[in-house]
Structures are given as structure tokens and as C-alpha cells.
């Protein structure tokens, strides 16, 4: 679990993880991904605690964050990231099933960089994931201290 990745995917649903990785694989981005399964693990990764105590100090270039997560939910993860001096530089993209306005509003209030609703249609889903991956992991110039292109 100590692998390096430019994309940190926080997702609890194994099927969503599988489909997301497949979508990214079509654009050779699957190797760039570190997957954590809940908010607690995401915070452990970001703050280099527990299982991730020994990982390198670079931050991921982007964080793909589901909102509905076991234990610590996505909004809380977002809140903790955005109130930490170094972590708040990481671009965070909420990637969720929820259209709910209150989720959108809460996310933006906490300083999210983008909010994407997972489309039901697989083509659209693949497109969305691809564009997210390409934009944030390749096109976007990440803040200093992030993992660079190999």
C-alpha cells in the first residue's frame, strides 16, 4: 500500500474502484492511482500515519474523493485537508453519486476544486474519469511538493 501515485482515489465501493481503474487504464493512467477505502485511511495516507507512516513526503497531484464513506465521510476529509497548511494545496475533486444541492454547496464551502457527479451511463462515466485523470494528473500544473511526471 506504500505505492506512489499521482492520483489518490478515496472510494469504498469495490465495483466503483474497478470501473474507475478500468476507465483510467484506457488512457494508461491506472498505474498513477493509489486507492484508499475510507476517510480514515485517506487521512492516514495524507498525514503519513499508521500504514502510511513510511511513505515519501510528496503529496498526490489530485485527490478524487467520494462523499459517502464509512467512518470518516468525504466532507470531513475535505474539511481536514483544507484546514492543513500543506495539504490544502492538493486539488480535491469530489466524485460522487449525489446530485444533492446541499452536498454541492457544502463541498464548495469547504474549498473543493471541482465537483463531479458520476454519470450512470458508462460511456459518460469513462469520459468523465478520463478527463479528470488527464486534466488533473497530466495537464494541470500541481502545487510544489506534488508527485511529478515520471
Amino acid at each position: 500500500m506504500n505505492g506512489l501515485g499521482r492520483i489518490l482515489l478515496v472510494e469504498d465501493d469495490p465495483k466503483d474502484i474497478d470501473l474507475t481503474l478500468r476507465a483510467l487504464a484506457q488512457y494508461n493512467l491506472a498505474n498513477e492511482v493509489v486507492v484508499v477505502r475510507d476517510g480514515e485511511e485517506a487521512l492516514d495516507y495524507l498525514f503519513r500515519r499508521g500504514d502510511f507512516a513510511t511513505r515519501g513526503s510528496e503529496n498526490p497531484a489530485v485527490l478524487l474523493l467520494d462523499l459517502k464513506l464509512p467512518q470518516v465521510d468525504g466532507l470531513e476529509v475535505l474539511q481536514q485537508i483544507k484546514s492543513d497548511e500543506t495539504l490544502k494545496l492538493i486539488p480535491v475533486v469530489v466524485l460522487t453519486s449525489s446530485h444533492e444541492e446541499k452536498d454541492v454547496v457544502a463541498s464548495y464551502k469547504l474549498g473543493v476544486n471541482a465537483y463531479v457527479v458520476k454519470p450512470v451511463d458508462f460511456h459518460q462515466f469513462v469520459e468523465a474519469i478520463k478527463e479528470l485523470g488527464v486534466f488533473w494528473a497530466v495537464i494541470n500544473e500541481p502545487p510544489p511538493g506534488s508527485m511529478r511526471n515520471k
Partner: protein
Amino acid sequence: MPTLLTRPPVQRYGLAVVSFAVALGTALWLNRFNVRDVEFPLFLLAIAISAWYAGTAPAILTMLLSSLAFNYFYTEPLYTFEVAWVDVPYFVVFVLFASLLTWFSAVRRRVEQRLLQSNDRLEGEVAERTRQAALLEQTAIEVRTLNQDLEARSRELEASNKELEAFAYSVSHDLRAPLRHMVGYAELLQKHESSIVDATGRDYMTSILDAAKRMGTLIDDLLAFSRIGRAETQNTTVNLELLLKEALNEIRQDTEGRNIVWRIGALPAVYGDRSMLRLALVNLLSNAVKFTRTRAQAEIEIGATDGTGKEVVVFIRDNGVGFNMKYVHKLFGVFQRLHRQEAFEGTGIGLATVQRIINRHGGTVWAEGLKDQGAVFYFSALKR
């Protein structure tokens, strides 16, 4: 408290006679010890007592008796009722003095009587006020109880609203995920079709995909519908002509490649929630576009007429497939459809949403139609 004046006349006149008798007796008794000239004040005292305790008429009786006694016992010639001329002024003074006494007493009595009456009235009023205060207090208690009931009810409502919100939230999050997975894996399977599925299998997969996508649309529409009920309305003045342009823009995808004649009349400004009203317009317009699909040339007319009072009625008329008026009551129900899915796709939530929006604005929505002769949808809104 019974006053002497309300006592029977026998008692009152009795008192008059007795007081006179006591005065006369005392005077005669004192005369024996050569005490002179006490009769005059004694008689006046008797008259005063009668006037005070028994009233005016008994006092006059005492006065008469005193005059007679005075005449008989104390004026020359003694022991007769004859009156010498020299004594007349003396009598007059006595009578005047006695009358004055009686009169004062009567006036005093009257004043006291009035005081008593007003006292009674005051007491009555106080009792009435006390009763009213008690009633008020009781009402206050009732109001308090009602308020508590209301508060409890409102808490219950709030709780069930929260539950409903949590439910919608869960639907929004959790129901869509498995759908996405179904669609995703079905499509991945399609990519491998050559090795494992034949033409029939491909059809099956298309059906699975269609069904899943349809369910996705249903969930989205249902969530949008429930959001209208929960969302706060933000009312402003809404320019309907501008709103119509936006709505037409939004459904452009459906009108592309179609031959549609639009007749758009003047539309007023109305008062309401802009985004909700736009959704209502979009739904009505896309219905009109959808159900005129079978026409070589579709005609859609949008206009407004004056309604009752401050209302305006907006109508959308089309020359589409219409509907049977027998089923008009089903038109605005959730999940109610009057056409088969393969003829006209849809979830049956569009018009229910329109109705909910218009109702939340205090307006009504209704429709007229004829099978194969087109339909007209009307809604009323507050004029601005």
C-alpha cells in the same frame, strides 16, 4: 345588610312613637326635680332618632306628637290643646328646626343609600372582572396546551421531514451506484461479445442497458420531484418571455431536425421562483414537442390571457396526439402515463412536477385535449 328603612312600617312607626314617649317621659320625670326647659332638646333628639333610624315619615309623626305634647304639657293654658298667640312663633321655630333635622337626615340617608348601591355595583363589577380574569387564565392555559401540541406536532413533522430528506439523500447516493455498475459491466461485456455472445445475447444486453438507463432517469426525475417539495422557494418578479427563451434553448436538442411552427404571444411578468417556473415551462414545452413528433408540421402556440383578479393564465397549445378527456384526471399523477413507452418515452413525472411547482406558487394547472386533435395545457400564476 338590611337598613332600618327596609324594615316593616310597624317597626319604623313604633320606633317613632317609642322615642317620643321616652323623650316625654324623661322630660316629665326631670320636671319633678325642678329641672326646667329640657323638653325642647329632648323632643328634638327624639325627632332626630326617628329621622335617622326610621325615615322621614316616622320623623314627621314624632314631630306631630312632640308638638301636641309640648302644647299640652308646656304651653299656657297647661293641660289643654289650645294655643296662645304668643306661643305660635315658638311652635314655628320648633317645627322648622325639626323639619331641617329631618331633611338633613333624609339627604344623608339618600347619599348613604347611593354609596351602598354604587358599592354593590363595584362589588359586582369586581366579581365580574375576577370571573373574566379566571376565564382569561383558563384560556391562556388552553392556548399554552395547544401551543405545546403544536410544537410537538411541528417537531414530529420536522423529524419526518428529516427522515424524508435522509431517504432522498440515500436514494441519490446508494441507488444510483449499483445502476452504474450494471451499465458499466454490461458495456464491458459488450466489448467481449464476439467470443461469448451471439446476436440474441447482444439484444439482451441492449435491453439490460436500456432498462438500467431508464431506471437512472426515473431516479433522477423522482429526486428532482421530491426536491421541489422540499426546496425553499425564492420568489422574485419573473419575466416570462425571457424565461420562455431560456426554456426553448434548453429543449433545443429535442427540436433539432423537426418542422415546428412556433406561435409565441405576449407574456406578462409573474411573481414566483425563477428556476422552478423554468422547470415547469421546460416540462410543458418538451411535452408539446414530444407529442407532436408524429406530425409532418408541428404547431405549438404559447400565450397568456387574463385570469381572475391578480392572476394570469398561460397556455401551451399543440396539434399533437392529444389525449382522451376521460383520463384527464390521471394526467398530473406521479408515474401516470397515457401513452405506451414505445410510442412516447417518459417517466410520468414531468406533469406531476409541473403541478407541484404551480401549486406551490398558489396557482392551478389543467388541461384540455382530444384524441389525435392536440392538447392545451393551462397554468395560472400571480401577475406582477
